[in-house]
């Protein structure tokens, strides 16, 4: 089991592997996502800059695709580390994460709250008032999203497949237009 990054941020298992694979954050045991130009050569590529960008994309994709993992999948150590993830991962992208978190609170079907309560919760100061349960909910979306991201890029082995992936993403987005 590999651990990610530093003492404050601890992500374990496959999710750490995915982030290492797709983000440029340096780590010695990272996997390479190789993509060929189709004819001449294959080169290692990284779609995301930092692990936070990767995690953030995972969160957005998880929400959009409703691809959260079960909370029971979190190990005891992971649960302990949530605070450090919040404090470290949240901080540099707090505004973006806050919006996603609010969106999750306003939309997650499994959250047993009425609309007024959802609104009240979403727009009360976060993340200070976030409870373990609510954070676990968000992290399960983020991790679920990472799995989706990996699926997307695992299909891509050359530039052509990459252009197909982009076209697919765009089509998926445009297909949901109002």
């Amino acid at each position, binding site marked *: 089991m590999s651990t990610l990054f530093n003492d404050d941020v601890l992500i374990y298992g496959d999710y750490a592997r995915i982030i290492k694979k797709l983000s440029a954050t340096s780590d010695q045991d990272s996997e390479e996502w190789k993509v060929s130009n189709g004819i001449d050569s294959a080169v290692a590529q990284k779609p995301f800059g930092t692990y936070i960008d990767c995690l953030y994309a995972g969160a957005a994709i998880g929400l959009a695709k409703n691809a959260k993992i079960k909370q029971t999948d979190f190990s005891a150590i992971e649960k302990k580390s949530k605070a450090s993830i919040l404090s470290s991962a949240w901080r540099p992208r707090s505004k973006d994460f806050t919006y996603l978190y609010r969106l999750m609170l306003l939309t997650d079907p499994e959250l047993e709250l009425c609309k007024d309560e959802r609104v009240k919760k979403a727009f009360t100061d976060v993340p200070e008032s976030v409870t373990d349960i609510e954070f676990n909910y968000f992290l399960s979306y983020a991790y679920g999203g990472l799995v989706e991201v990996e699926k997307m890029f695992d299909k891509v082995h050359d530039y052509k497949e990459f*252009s197909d992936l982009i076209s697919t993403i*765009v089509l998926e987005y445009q297909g949901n237009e109002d």
Partner: protein
Amino acid sequence: MKIKTIELSNFRQFEKEKLVFTDVVGKKVTIVHGQTHIGKTTLVKAFLWCLYRSDDSFKTDPILVNKDAEKFMSPGDKKTVSVTVELEHNGFGYVIKTEQAFTYFRNLNEGYFSPVIKDPIRHMIKMTQEGNPTSVPLEQVDNEINEILPDNLRCYFFYDGENNKIDDVAEKSNLQDAVRNIMNLNVREELIKYFSDGVAGRLVERFEDKKSTSNFEEVGNLKEQKSYFEGLIETERNNNKQLRQNIEELNGQITNLEDQIDANKESAELQEKARQITRQIAELKKHRDDLFPSLLKRCDSSESVGLAGFFSVLAYKKANLTVEYANIKTNERAYKHLTGESVDEIIQKGVCVCGQKIELGGDYYKHLIEEKDYLSPKDFSASLKSFTDRFNDQVDAVDSSAYQLSRDAADLKKTIQSIESFGKQLEDINKKLEGFHGDIGAWQRDLQQKKYTKSGNEAVINYSESNIIPQNETKISGFKEKIDKYSDASEKNRHIQMYLNYLSSVRDMAQTRLDKKKEGIAVTLEQQVNNLFHAIVGTDKTELRLNKVNYNVEPYQNDQRISLSTGQKTMKNLAFVGGLIYLAKNKDKIGGAEGVDLDEPDDYPLVMDAPFSYLSKGDIKRACTELPKYCSQLIITLLDKDFDLAIDVLKPFIDKSYTLKTNETSTDSHFEEDEL
């Protein structure tokens, strides 16, 4: 010079007298003898007065007019004194007449008559060689006299022995001049100067003036420059020759290449096509390789949209929040102007604005607390609106990005397909070209390069032949012109220098001859003076040594300088004068002759006034024996006592002899020719 006659008119004691001098070969002596103070010296002075218009002795008694004539003159009367000498010199006959007018008047203050003396006037008639008389202009008379007998020689040839005024002619300071004049040394030296450097107006200077100012060094520089530019042209021509050879070679290579390319035209077209496709593939690959990372980069969540932006907007859209939470937005409470803090104040007061009493935990209380959540600062409907507004803004950005991404993805795909397609075409062409190994492109490039080189070479030749060579030729022509000009000048200078060198050698030669002449003169003069002296003295005990610079003669016996008696001095003088006459007569034989007029012998008469006054009888006899050997004409005045001694010896040489006698009726004198 030979004196033929002298005629005296009113001159001192001579009222009207004429003497004719000897003109017979072998009898060259004329004697005039008489008592003392009757006119012997006056006769000699008359010669000098006629020739030179002056004599020192006349200064104390300037009235030359005949005393008897003077006696009969009345105030206002005029008497003219004249002396006429007829002589011959170098084949020309001369008649020289000097006259002086004396006009008498009564001197009231002094109480006696005195004459007004006018300057003597000298006339000269020169007989041409044909015998025609020509009057010599007055201003030319001095020159003519000087030609006949220079003034400074007169004391030697008109010798005053009686008064012994020339007590030692052999030691006079003007001896040097005398010898120089007789032997024309001055003229020779002047001529030498004419050939010497640094003397204004001389021949050398005139040649020097004609020298061109240009110099050889300048010509040398010009030649160097000309040679340099000739070298440039030579180099240019060689270069052009080489370039032409190169062009010839290139022409051959170009033809070969063109043939080669033409023969492989089809392959050439295929290769060209392949090249084009290769270029296109390269461009496409570059585009692909630029596009992919840019597209990949836009997936990153740190970008303005990124995958996170895409999917968060997608999630937002799916949630359809506007519809879901419409109620919250529409059921906004009415307490628009109240804030949460206002509600807290109402609760604290316990009475609502409507007057209802508020109890803690009561219905009104709960109602107010519930309402407070919808009031500022916790107006969740406003927050929700702000939240959805933000997402709506992001929707626009993502829409735009979606379009861009879609287009770029399609571009990437199309690019990759094009690369594949061109790759196949290239493969087909290469199959067709299989077995053909020539590189037509390289051939064409080579052909172009060769054509370019050829054209470059042609341009260089053209520029060289139309500019560089003509320009340098013009320069060379200019240099040549100058060189020719300066060379002419140099040639002229060379000739002038030759003339100058010649002049220099002429001068050296003339100087050598002059030195030889001087040496000859000194030797001859010394020898002749000694010969004559010893002959007159009758012994050779005393040696007369000649100073070769000033020609003074000094007596020595046994190498000791000695003093001479008056008689010995007279004999020394006679010997010296004899020596001078010898020099004049033998100019052409002494020290070499130039073969010019300078060496034309002169024959001077010797007019001697009482020369034997201080001599013994023996001396007189010896003198009379020797002197006629030296001169062509000897006119001697003698005291009667000396005449008696000399006559025996002189008789064979005497042509004429005159006795000077006083007139019976006056103080005048007259001459009577003796019967010999």
